[in-house]
């Protein structure tokens, strides 16, 4: 077999190549990407897997920061309200112990303190988007319910565990303290001390009233300290938010360098590919036999 020494194979090969180049250029402009299938750039495609996953994670971490910040701020706000209530209670207790009150005065004071106790319990039972903030990890249970057998009149239904929320690949932030630690701690019992003041005021015993008032004062300081945990969580979350923003920029930038087509360049490449293709087709039209031309649908 002897091959016919014509230029046909060369021309056909050129046409194929210029058509292929044209297709690639078209796709790049259309998708904005220079890597569409793994063979375009195997290393870039492989690296994009991690990039995609990490980008998804960073987006979710960012949302977690937002959600968690809200719940932390809600909890802190509730504690702020508790501090106000306790401050008021101390004031009432101090008044009650000053010896100038008659029986009905003391009863009136007792009622006010009872009201404060109820309000503080309501604060302890704060929920955010369906979860109780001070029940430990038993967030589907009401933290405090009335219990006549309990000294404070309330029993804690939550637990002593806490959740730490993932806000980064290597960062989880503790977002709460158990109610038992804040409100019914044996060394500074908020509910207990309020309840004691109510009883003391009702009984009229000045020394008892003083004791209870001191206990509330003690509890107030204690709650203020507990708020620090929430303050710290907030700080951490805010810092993390900034970090995540930077991560997002960095990941986007990486993604572009891995797969992105430079817009201006893609347009230029397309224009060039089109010019090349026209030239090749024109050259082909001059050389190829008519039958082949019509088969390939080249304008002659």
């Amino acid at each position: 077999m002897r091959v016919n020494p014509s230029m046909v194979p060369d021309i056909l090969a050129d046409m194929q190549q210029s058509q292929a180049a044209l297709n690639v250029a078209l796709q790049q402009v259309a998708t904005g990407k220079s890597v569409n299938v793994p063979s375009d750039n195997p290393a870039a495609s492989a690296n994009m897997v991690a990039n995609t996953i990490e980008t998804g994670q960073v987006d979710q971490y960012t949302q977690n920061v937002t959600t968690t910040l809200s719940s932390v701020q809600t909890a802190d706000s509730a504690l702020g309200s508790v501090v106000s209530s306790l401050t008021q209670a101390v004031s009432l207790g101090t008044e009650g112990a000053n010896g100038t009150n008659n029986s009905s005065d003391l009863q009136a004071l007792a009622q006010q303190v009872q009201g404060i106790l109820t309000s503080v319990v309501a604060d302890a039972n704060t929920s955010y988007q369906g979860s109780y903030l001070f029940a430990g990890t038993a967030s589907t249970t009401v933290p405090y319910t009335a219990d006549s057998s309990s000294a404070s009149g309330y029993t804690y239904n939550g637990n002593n565990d806490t959740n730490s929320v993932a806000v980064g690949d290597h960062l989880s932030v503790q977002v709460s303290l158990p109610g038992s630690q804040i409100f019914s701690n044996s060394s500074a019992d908020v509910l207990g001390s309020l309840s004691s003041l109510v009883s003391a005021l009702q009984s009229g015993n000045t020394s008892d009233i003083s004791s209870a008032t001191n206990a509330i004062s003690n509890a107030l300081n204690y709650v203020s300290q507990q708020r620090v945990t929430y303050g710290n969580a907030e700080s951490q979350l805010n810092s993390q938010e900034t970090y995540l923003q930077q991560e997002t920029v960095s990941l986007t930038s990486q993604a572009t360098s891995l797969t992105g087509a430079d817009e201006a360049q893609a347009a230029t490449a397309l224009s060039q590919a089109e010019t090349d293709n026209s030239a090749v087709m024109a050259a082909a039209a001059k050389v190829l036999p008519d039958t082949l031309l019509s088969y390939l649908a080249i304008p002659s």
Partner: protein
Amino acid sequence: MGGLNTSLLIGMQALEATQGALNATSNNIANANTTGYTREVVQLSENPMTDSGNEITGGGVSMDGLQSIRDELLNLQIQKQTSLQSSVDTQSSSLQQIQSYFTSNGEDIASELTAFSSSLTQLSATPSNAAAQQSVLVSGQNLARSFNTTAQGLMSSQSEADGQVTQTVAQINSLTKQIAQLNGEVSQLTASGQNGGTIEDQRDALVQQLSSLTGISVTQSDGGETITTANGSALVMGSQSFSLQTTTGSDGMKHVLDSNGNDITSSIQGGQLGGAIQIRDQVVPGLLSQLNTLASQFATAFNAAQAQGYDSNGKAGQDFFTVPAGTAGSAAGISVAISDPSLIAASSDGSAGSNGNVANLSAALTTALPSGQTPAATYSSMVFQVGTDASNASTQSTAIAQNLLQLTNQQSSASGVSIDEETTNLIRFQTAYEAAARIVSTIQQLSTVTLDMGSTQSY
């Protein structure tokens, strides 16, 4: 007497030495998953001289004779490259399809791994939230499905290649019959003193076609033409043809048998047949195996993490994924075992609001599996492998096409006036190629400071 063969033999040995040196300068292509390319070695066998009027007498050869040998040599090169071209094109075609299963399209494994990871991270913030739990369940199902789809895709590519085997063998048998027939006619014509040139040309065209179906070895002797497969199984001997057969093996695939019934499947190289077999028996099984291992190990790791915690009902976490017992079929068979989102074991202390076990669930995705890499890194490696294979096949395809063009052009250009001139030109080509090979090496080693492909984020 052994002048021609001996000197050709010496020439071949010199060739092999140079070839080795050339190979060293560009190693990437050598790793390409193309059939038989790197295994093919140029050999020259000495045939006993026969006692015919066409025997080459020792010492002298005419220019015409040299031209004839040169053409024959180029012919054989074209044949060999045609086989290689077909094989590479067949594989390239399959690989384009195969890589589509690994291309990011929103429902591929990478996309679903992303969604699944994110859903777990969301659960960390709101462990008792029904929507967050549902999200984990659904994305888990989508992830399982992406494994199923990818495995099914691979199996369909394999099945397609299997079909090609059957088809190609039939085509081969048809051609060998025709070739044998023509050989017979040529013999008769020659015996009766007539010119069998036209028929020979016809036959040569068929042999060329045959070479695109499978790698062949062609030997001319006065007894006629002998064609075997690259590994030596008889296809044509003079006017007799030998059919290949196919039979379904225990692996469910079509095996190729020679005319004696020997299974020659794994030794077939070149041509569409070689390419299809390479895809069917090497490329796809390799990928499926990796995919199955990934699915199996990942499911096991995640289920173990489930077992470390408690679901919303306070019960110990049960299996989230179901996979077959062994590794085989894991990718095609992986599914989500639960349908109730509350069974997701987010809790570490038994209470419904605890997220303590979510960290363990997430860790199943960020911790190295027994095979050595995280799920994402394992999958990334597969993407890289598939992309590289597809890219190499495409590169080879174009390169071989250009080489074939060159061979064709070489054949149609008249041989030089003198051997010296011809040799000088050839040496100039050699020199140019050697210089070019050094350029190739320089470019490969060229690093640009701007080439920051981004460090692989430790996922």
